[in-house]
């Protein structure tokens, strides 16, 4: 059943736009922000060229971008939007609103840091700011994955076991503006696999309903609990969806966390996003040098794949978590999730360490990763692990 379809050279941003196109979205509402702009420019082009039968709402702000998507979703449309950085924060209120109303929506996040100072380069600060919103959150490492995860997001979002919005992260520029070959599956296969729009209710006047009336504390808490329940279900659904997807596309199944040389590793790194590729180079090189290292790359951040990470990393001597964001006054978000996930299973964890780096778009190369990994191995061997480090300009800042 495998088909190659089309192979095109696409930027990460265009990959998101193509995914929305083959998902046959009905409504796109978006507001321009660097480095997201070319996502919606491409969709506007598809729509104006007649290649995509959809309505483009050129809204006056990001708050309205997601609000318009929310309204269209409730009224029965498959919708898509994309944003970045300050724009994502501006729409943050509606980000919460969409998941509480159980509205299936797909949104691309072309990540970029937050100001001041003005800085258009990528880290995960904006994305991590959304981690408590009740959205399913995935993150791509390359443009093919940006396309694949976005297309799968529609299926995940519209699954009755989930019925939550999904955001797909890619780093601005590093993927967003970088061209790579991307395989686009044939439209008819996508149509057959994805099927028509599916949602828990539709507001179109055919039925009396009021969405979001004032509710008592206990009722409200139950809605929250059900979002948590849906997150648990979503763990299965994202796996199922990817399995189906790899059958029709022939692309390898990677799961919520990709294991790269982690099976027999004594030390594992954990990371998310494009720099995981550089980290893989580093892991391969260190393996050649005799270090027993591996990598767990997070593809789905929410629901957090904590059990999977525990299973893969519990028998190691050390776990090194790379974060491209910081929860000021605490640690990097992935580290916090990882540490908590271990505590669910055991009181005797391996060494777990957090390195924050790459903030504001600072480029971290495989040489940097090798340096950090080697030092971590030596720290574990000598029982002197610092739980937290900020890696900056080639040096460690504690």
């Amino acid at each position, binding site marked *: 059943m495998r088909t190659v379809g089309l*192979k095109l*050279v696409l*930027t990460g941003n265009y990959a998101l736009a193509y995914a929305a196109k083959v998902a046959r979205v009905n409504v796109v509402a978006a507001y321009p922000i660097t480095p997201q702009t070319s996502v919606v420019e491409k969709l506007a082009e598809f729509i104006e060229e007649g290649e995509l039968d959809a309505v483009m709402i050129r809204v006056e702000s990001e708050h309205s971008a997601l609000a318009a998507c929310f309204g269209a979703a409730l009224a029965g449309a498959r919708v898509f939007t994309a944003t970045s950085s300050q724009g994502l924060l501006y729409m943050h209120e509606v980000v919460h609103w969409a998941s509480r109303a159980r509205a299936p929506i797909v949104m691309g996040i072309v990540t970029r840091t937050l100001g001041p100072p003005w800085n*258009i*380069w990528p880290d995960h600060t904006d994305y991590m700011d959304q981690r408590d919103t009740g959205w399913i959150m995935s993150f791509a490492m390359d443009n093919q994955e940006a396309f694949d995860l976005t297309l799968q997001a529609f299926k995940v979002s519209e699954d009755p076991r989930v019925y939550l919005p999904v955001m797909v992260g890619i*780093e*601005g*520029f*590093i*993927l967003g*503006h*970088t*061209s*790579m*070959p991307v395989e686009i599956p044939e439209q008819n296969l996508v149509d057959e696999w994805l099927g028509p729009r599916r949602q828990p209710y539709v507001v179109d006047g055919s039925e009396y309903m009021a969405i979001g009336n004032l509710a008592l504390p206990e009722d409200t808490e139950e809605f929250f609990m059900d979002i948590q329940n849906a997150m648990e279900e979503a763990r299965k659904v994202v796996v199922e969806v990817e399995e189906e997807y790899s059958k029709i596309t022939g692309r390898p199944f990677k799961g919520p966390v990709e294991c790269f040389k982690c099976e027999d590793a004594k030390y594992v790194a954990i990371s998310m996003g*494009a*720099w995981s*590729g*550089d980290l*893989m*180079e580093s892991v391969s090189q260190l393996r050649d040098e005799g270090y027993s290292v591996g990598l767990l790359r997070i593809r789905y951040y929410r629901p957090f794949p904590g059990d999977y990470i525990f299973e893969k990393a519990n028998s190691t001597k050390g776990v090194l978590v790379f974060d491209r964001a910081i929860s000021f006054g605490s640690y990097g978000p992935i580290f916090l999730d990882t540490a908590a996930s271990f505590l669910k299973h055991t009181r005797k964890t391996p060494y777990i360490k957090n390195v924050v780096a790459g903030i504001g*778009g600072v*480029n*971290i*190369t*495989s040489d940097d990763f090798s340096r950090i990994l080697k030092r971590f191995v030596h720290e574990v061997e000598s029982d002197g692990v610092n739980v937290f480090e900020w890696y900056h300009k080639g040096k460690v800042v504690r």
Partner: protein
Amino acid sequence: MLEIVFIGRGGQGAVTAANILVEAAMIEGLHAQGFPFFGAERRGAPVAAYARVDKKPILRHGMFNTADVVVVLDGKLVQQDYASQFTLRDKGVLVLNSPHTQIPRDLKLRFEGDYSIYVVNATEIAVKNKLVIAGWPVVNTGMLGALSRAIGVVSKNAVVEAVKRYFGGRVGEVNAKASEDAYEQTVRVV
């Protein structure tokens, strides 16, 4: 893996060149990446674009200053301070758009070791092919032909096909002609 930097002026099409190179590499069955300088590009100011080409999937991301190949869309830029941030690896290749075939003086580019230099007059080729937009000769497609001649990894045919696909129609044909002309007229000077 080959890491390639295109140096040009904002508006000269360095980013387009990098993207077409990815298309050409794909035609050759290779893996590739192409991307602009991450930041604000201003018309006329010196600016870089980047490409990676490899037989294996490319895991590495991000900009780089040390490259295997440097393609200079405006030959004069290699004599300006802007070029000094880039380093050519040992056995690296420099491809220049220049009307002169002698080795330019005062190269600001840094070298780690041996290098070769290829020269082509892409500006003249653009003018002859009537590839002038808003007063600017379009040199990027010519420089891709020269790049193909200089490194060989991506064949002339692949570049021509990629250029045609990228632009389509008559524009594609004319640009492809520029690539072919440049391929033929590129000479090694060092």
